[in-house]
């Protein structure tokens, strides 16, 4: 066994010292320990908020109606005698109610959490009861991306492509510790430490894995968020900018 050539310490170290923890097997000749190779973190940067649409949030073109509403001009009577081309109504609020009560998640199970996600949609925890249809297989027909399971660097590119293929409006739910912050793979060399580095997340559901009830609670929070227009999508014209190097 290539375990000879150890630094002092090991099992024979005097009790009570840390010496027995420190030594590592020598990898180079002459018992010299190799220098640690430090790789600077150039790949992963948090997504730039200004990148959503390329302009500051307040100037986003998709918020024109909202700004117009806030300015109070629309509440003048100009619309009555044709001084305006558009008449703002409360139709958006009705649309939000419709969106909130027919969420169609994308079937995107990546790892362990996928089974709790499927458990949420089957007989025991039947999410049909709250207006969430169990899973579309095509991103073109889905409006919620539930990222269930560890996102690895290799899977990041396909997942971001899926996200960009989904039509607006769309929302993203991070399910599980791995997707929220890295979780138990915080120290792994091949995972992404939280999917908010590559996707704009609306709801985080922690747990390893969260129970289906936890995910249902998260989805209900998402419904609340859709109704109150607090998600990411009103500020967003196009999909998020992907950091270089994925």
């Amino acid at each position, binding site marked *: 066994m290539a*375990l000879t050539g150890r630094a002092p310490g090991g099992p024979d170290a005097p009790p009570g010292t840390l010496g027995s923890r420190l030594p590592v097997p020598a990898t180079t000749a002459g018992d010299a320990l190799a220098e640690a190779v430090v790789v600077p973190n150039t790949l992963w940067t948090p997504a730039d908020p200004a990148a959503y649409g390329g302009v500051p949030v307040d100037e986003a073109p998709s918020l024109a109606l909202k700004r117009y509403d806030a300015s109070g001009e629309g509440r003048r009577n100009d619309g009555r005698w044709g001084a305006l081309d558009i008449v703002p109504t409360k139709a958006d609020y009705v649309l939000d109610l419709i969106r909130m009560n027919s969420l169609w998640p994308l079937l995107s199970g990546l*790892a362990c959490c996928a089974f*709790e996600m499927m458990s949420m949609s089957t007989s025991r925890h039947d999410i049909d009861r709250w207006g969430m249809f169990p899973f579309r297989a095509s991103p073109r027909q889905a409006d919620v991306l539930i990222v269930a399971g560890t996102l690895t660097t290799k899977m990041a590119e396909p997942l971001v492509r899926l996200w960009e293929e989904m039509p607006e409006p769309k929302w993203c739910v991070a399910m599980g510790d791995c997707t929220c912050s890295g979780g*138990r793979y915080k120290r792994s060399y091949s995972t992404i430490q939280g999917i908010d580095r590559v996707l704009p997340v609306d709801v985080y559901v922690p747990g390893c894995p969260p129970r289906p009830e936890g995910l249902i609670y998260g989805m209900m929070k998402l419904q609340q968020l859709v109704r109150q227009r607090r998600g990411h999508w009103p500020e967003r014209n196009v999909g998020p900018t992907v950091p270089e190097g994925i």
Partner: protein
Amino acid sequence: MTTPTRPSLDDPALAIPVEHAGIFEPIPVPRTEREREFYDLKDGELLLNMGPHHPSTHGVLRVVLKINGEQIVDVDPVLGYLHRGAEKICENADYHQVISQVDPLEYISALFNEWGAVLSFEKLLDVEVPRRAEYIRVLAGELNRVASHMLFLGFYALDLGGITPILWSFAERDEIMEALAALTGQKLLFNYFRIGGVNGDLNHEFLSRVGDWMSRAGTHLEDGMTLLNENEIFVRRTRGIGVIDRETALRMCVSGANLRASGVPFDLRRAHPYSVYPELDFDIPTRAEGDSLARYLLRFDEVKQSLRIIDQCLHEMPDGPVMAKLPRLLRPRPGRAFSSVEAPRGQYSTYVVSDGTDQPFRMRIHDASFLHLEILGLLMPGTLVQDIMVVMSSLDPVMGGVDK
């Protein structure tokens, strides 16, 4: 008036940037001889990409199919979409922490991951496990096996286009998982086995849930068998598809239910007995056909045997402690140990090298699903595109175990 010129692909301004090459170019530059052979298309052949996001690939597996019309010419599984570096993490965790780190590998049957790790550590440390702990391990493990097989039955039907069975099988699986959650405290990744025993003794909620479920399990299993076993469409799509004969199965290191469906009665619980399996009475079901239908039906037989084992464990549960007396900080002497358990997907092996510290020097984890994916390259050529789902799903791979 000038004629507009058509854009040329040779124009450097229109060239695909290097960083997008993987997105827009379906055919990568071949790096090995095998890739050169695979990506060299003959007349009438084309490449079809399946995954990594595909509802039927059981996780994030990507399979590149080379097809000629409707016929599959060659198959190239692309792995690594769920590589999480578990072995490296295990080498940086101490022996107790490793148990929780191996949990998410084969995540449908997490108890067997722990069992493999714990068995090898116990060999390394020369620990004797109390008999009650062994019985509890067998009981919990067999419950997990039933839950895993039940999931397979539902997913297999789902991959073939049937929705109803998965609703039934998830109802069954959730009941077992709730019982195990009462025992272990966690629902999917249990983190229950310990070096020298288990984390906690049986409790009232677990026993009442298991007793309740056992009173109905046999009936539910019979109900599940009535769903598809005589369904003409199902049988026609699976019988004679993906036949693994006995010699091929042994040569390609197939194990578990897939091997027994090819007529080899090899089960680690009998062949290399561990825990208290020698004391328990159960059979090793086999089937001779070796096709997808046989693999599907064999899981039902295995569930029946598991129910027998659970029944015996509940009746013959001995009294006593559930943990051996061990120091909190474990430092096994330098050496190596190997252990294998019969997981629902086949042989799950753990090989651990100790250097005398409280962390493993090397931890090698071997999962059967990896080898089962390899056999796709032998089974698929010559079959039709619709059969890839049938065959791959009947092998029941779990990508967490394949990619680690």
